[in-house]
């Protein structure tokens, strides 16, 4: 459906994207994830036609669109701040593209009404000024405005970053729902890994203009292909070589020279008298701190120089106090290891380099 082929984007002397190759399948909800300045928005805007790449081509539906104007690519876009036209009311905003396209009036009326119904905007809201709408309603206007032109691709540039946390959570669901209802190929840009993990079919993690990993949310999380992906997605505690030694590396294929990480839900506190699962190893440490979250508590345990975070489910079991000794139980296969230069370990049985 969408293919970036050897795309290079430069701004003056600055190379924003050195070489990008990426494919997005029809109907997919595809997310470009990365910290700010990583090139994800540049990649999106190149697809939208606002940026002309210095090299390479962009294919949509098998057709090269690299030199086409934005509106000729049949992509709809929802901007970070929605970019609604403040001088027009809701109806006029949605109808703008149709008017530009010189649709006749009855057709315009019909299309605007239909899309408004589908994104759940009432007749009354259509006559309102934008300032009278809530953030969520504004977002729906922005989506309606993009979808009314029946694009083949919907581009979303951090559409939730502008909202407060609660609304953000709520709209995440609505956005995903809308996408699956319309079944439209969607490229979504965000720096919020939570958003990426919950909404996407697949994710491309960007760093410094390059893709670190492409995969399903689960692949990205469980088998982070690089140290960058590992630390950027989710929470992971860095482990010291001493800690690795304590795991008896020779028996489980771990290498003390590499950077090692452990996700906090992949390690448990060993309750005294409870049998450890097969293959697990026990490591002793001291409880350094505990932060209580109601549903769970996150303990920080110091062991062999590493400060290991542990997710502890508050299900009524006994919990250690700060300063007490505690025993960590973990499966060495869950330790993520990377070469110091960020490259995944060659030939290691984990982690899996998903789509490289």
């Amino acid at each position: 459906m969408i293919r970036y082929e050897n795309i290079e984007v430069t701004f003056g002397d600055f190379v924003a994207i050195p070489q990008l190759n990426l494919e997005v399948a029809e109907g997919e909800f595809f997310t470009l994830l990365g910290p700010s300045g990583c090139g994800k928005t540049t990649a999106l805007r190149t697809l939208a036609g606002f940026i002309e790449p210095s090299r390479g081509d962009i294919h949509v539906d098998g057709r090269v669109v690299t030199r086409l104007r934005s509106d000729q690519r049949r992509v709809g876009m929802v901007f970070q701040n929605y970019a609604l036209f403040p001088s027009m009311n809701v109806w006029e905003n949605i109808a703008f593209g149709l008017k530009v396209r010189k649709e006749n009036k009855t057709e315009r009326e019909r299309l605007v009404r239909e899309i408004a119904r589908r994104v759940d905007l009432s007749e009354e809201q259509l006559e309102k000024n934008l300032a009278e709408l809530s953030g969520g309603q504004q977002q729906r206007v922005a989506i309606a405005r993009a979808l009314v032109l029946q694009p083949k691709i919907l581009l979303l540039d951090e559409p939730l970053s502008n909202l407060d946390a609660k609304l953000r959570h709520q709209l995440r669901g609505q956005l995903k729902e809308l996408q699956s209802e319309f079944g439209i190929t969607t490229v979504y840009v965000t720096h919020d890994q939570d958003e990426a993990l919950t909404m996407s079919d697949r994710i491309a993690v960007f760093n410094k203009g390059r893709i670190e990993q492409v995969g399903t949310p689960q692949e990205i999380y469980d088998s982070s292909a690089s140290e960058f992906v590992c630390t950027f997605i989710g929470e992971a505690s860095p482990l010291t070589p001493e800690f690795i030694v304590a795991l008896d590396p020779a028996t489980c294929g771990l290498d003390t020279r590499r950077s090692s990480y452990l996700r906090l839900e992949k390690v448990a506190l060993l309750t005294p008298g409870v049998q450890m699962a097969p293959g697990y190893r026990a490591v002793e440490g001291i409880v350094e701190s505990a932060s209580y979250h109601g549903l769970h508590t996150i303990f920080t345990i110091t062991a062999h120089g590493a400060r290991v975070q542990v997710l502890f489910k508050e299900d009524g079991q006994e919990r250690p106090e700060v300063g007490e000794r505690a025993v960590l139980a973990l499966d060495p296969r869950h330790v993520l290891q990377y070469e110091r230069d960020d490259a995944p370990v060659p030939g290691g049985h984990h982690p899996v380099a998903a789509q490289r």
Partner: protein
Amino acid sequence: MSRTPVRTMVRSPFVLVVGVILTWFVAAFLVWPNANLLIETFFPGGKFSGRAVEKLTSSDRAMKSLFNSFLLAVTLAITTNIVGVFIVLVTKYFDIRGARILWFGYATTFIYGGIVLAAGYKFVYGESGIVTGALLGVFPGLDPNWFTGYFAVLTVMTFATTTNHMLFLSSSLAKVDHQTIEAAQNMGAGTFTILFRVVLPMLRPMLFATTILSFLTGLGALSAPQVLGGRDFQTITPMILTFAGSPTSRDLAALLAVVLGVATILMLAIMGKLEKGGTYFSLSRVSTSLARQKITNPLANAVVHGVAYVLFVIYLVPVVLIILYSFVDSRTIQSGTFSIDKMSLANYGRVLGHGASLRPFLVSVVYSAAAAVIVVGGLLFVTRILSKYRNWLTTVFEYLLHIPWILPAAMIALGLIMSYDHPNPLVGTFVLTGTTVILLIAFVVVKIPFTLRLLKASFASVNASLEEAATLMGASSLYTFRRILFPAVLPVAAAVLALNFNSLLDDYDTAVFLAHPLFQPLGLVIKANTDGAASLDARANTFVYTVLLMVITGLTMYLVYGRATATGKRRARLRVPVPVSLPADEATS
């Protein structure tokens, strides 16, 4: 904004102190002198006199001039907006080659105006002008005086009054979120659809503002009609000034001024209504800065480039000629024949030659600076209160502060003299006439409405939570004002300060009545040295003074704007909003 009861408002000591001073100032220098003048004028001896109405309505010339003034005001409001919008677009919106150079050409109106500007254009298009000469070569039958009348006046004033666009519309444009333009592009809109359907509508509040300012400029047109109007197109302001000077005809001046004043207020009210609901706050917390737009159609691109450079030449040539002509003698200037070998520094030597010649410059600089600082400084406090509290009292004050827009400066000066040439309880036991203070008061008074409008808009744009945060942290209102609000409105205040300063520098109308003999400002000296009947060198002197004024005003603008544009970061702070609506309308928004 919510309404605050008067009783709550006056509980604040800050409000109380500012309020008392403001009440005194408004009563003593805005209401009483002008009321006094109008009463004396229309009710001589306590009885109403309808003489002025009768005289004026039966005068064809007065009626025609009045009509011309209104015609000029209405058409100028349209044409200035067209040219103004165009020059702002080519310098700040479209991707035009040499936009920066173009900007400097268009910005020449910042530094000169009035009679010299009109004369400058006459050099180019008048009967002995360069362009006329060229045209005559092509069309021998052309009337050498083709550049006179309504068309000429309108043309010159259109180019002369785009300053507001350059200052205020540019800053509005800079605030347009670039994403909205991309959104429109994404939906298939072309360059001009985006411009007319998306960008210009967002600039509507500022366009209302520039419309009002252009309308006012047209209504008060003085020098351009005098120089270029010819017999068929004279306006009302010269007549007002003539009549204002003569004690027996002052009622005519007052009546005409009131007619213009009422039109001004009506215009403000109408625009306020139109503007209502049209103030577009940015919907988002994030907006991306505007990137210059390429004009995709090559033909349109060529046309826009062409027009931009033609305008550039139109703007620049009069200034260049004035500077060149300031080096030649009056004879050469008057006959319009120019050659390099006639240039000398003789004019500058004559004007600046003797020891005392710098004195008027200093007097004017000090007076203008003092007045500009006082009016901006004082109104910062006042505007703060007017924008924070909305009730009948603040509304009344806001209207009262607009009084100086209703009367011409000369009449305001007369009102002050009439009211304070004897001990008056309003100002203690002092007699103000003949002191150095009275001119300063007049300068402050005439600058109040303009300053008020700009500062108010600026306060309105300050994020209210800033202030609340400071208050929560225990800051006193004065401290909050000084450390939080003042820095936020400082860029606008500085811009207004500069504009006020520049416009007061060569004031004549008030100084002629109020200046202290030992401290005569520049305007009087210029007039004395440039009066055609008095001296053959008059014409050359005019040009020298104009060039010197250009230097000062150019320097002022540079200090306020120029240095800021050197670093993009600071430029972003210097955005001046213009506000137009009346208090009643704002109260509801």
